[in-house]
């Protein structure tokens, strides 16, 4: 057993780090899909490449303002929050992702007991919830 194994974990810190990695991976995946390098993305935003590199490190404490700005620039959902008003926040993105695969329902529903959806499943979840309500 290593010393790392012997350290008792803290759930809050664990989830904090997990979410930060989720957000970074989501941004990295969008940039890769759009064929944008870190430098090109930095140029679009008028930022230094080091700033983008920081966002992709998995350990950046994003503000809601920064995430929202990146969502607008990238025209993609990076992070979503469960809300009673879910339908209203979803339509805009549904139109932009008409070919999103229909759902891995079980995985999506697993996330309903937390106040935060895993980012990569948001579009699928939204599409699923709409199809169920129609």
């Amino acid at each position, binding site marked *: 057993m290593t010393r790392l194994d012997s350290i008792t*974990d803290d759930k809050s810190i664990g989830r904090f*780090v997990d979410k930060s990695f989720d957000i970074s991976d989501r941004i990295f995946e969008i940039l890769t899909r759009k064929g944008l390098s870190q430098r090109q993305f930095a140029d679009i935003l008028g930022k230094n490449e080091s700033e983008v590199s920081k966002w992709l*490190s998995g*350990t950046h404490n994003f503000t809601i303002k920064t995430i929202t700005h990146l969502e607008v620039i990238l025209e993609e959902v990076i992070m979503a929050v469960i809300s009673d008003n879910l339908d209203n926040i979803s339509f805009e993105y549904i139109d932009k992702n008409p070919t999103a695969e229909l759902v891995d329902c079980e995985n999506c529903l697993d996330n309903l007991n937390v106040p935060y959806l895993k980012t990569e499943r948001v579009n699928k979840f939204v599409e699923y919830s709409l199809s169920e309500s129609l």
Partner: protein
Amino acid sequence: MKRIHFQKYSKNRKLSIYTVRFAENTENETDSFLKKYWQAGFKEDILIIKNWIRNLEDRGAKEHYFRHERRANAGPAHFSKLRIYCIRCHDNLIILDGGGEKRGQTAQDGQETNAAMELMNAVDEAFVEKIKDRDIIYSFDGMDLFGELFVDIS
């Protein structure tokens, strides 16, 4: 001349972690670092490092997760007041060292971070030579090292 041994630290589906140990020491540098800073009261920072490593194990050691300091790599880039150094061989294998408390923007700003960064740079140089000479070889899947699992550095 100092002899530094590589020893397996952990292995998961996506990541093998080796650590380094000075020949004259019984404890490896990673555990020594964790013990020292845990006892010094950096508990939250150590827990962040624990979870940072767990995420590397879950996702692979992708290049963009690391801060590059010459040949060495460091993390976590943010959150923690501590920084741990490593050699990132590829997405599925890293060689972990110890580290120290961040004292500024660069490793050179702190005595311990600088020592860890310099050590990993020297180890990486010697390690690459051993790979070239086939004194150390990767397993077929790249997740294990075989051969002379040590390097000598001045």
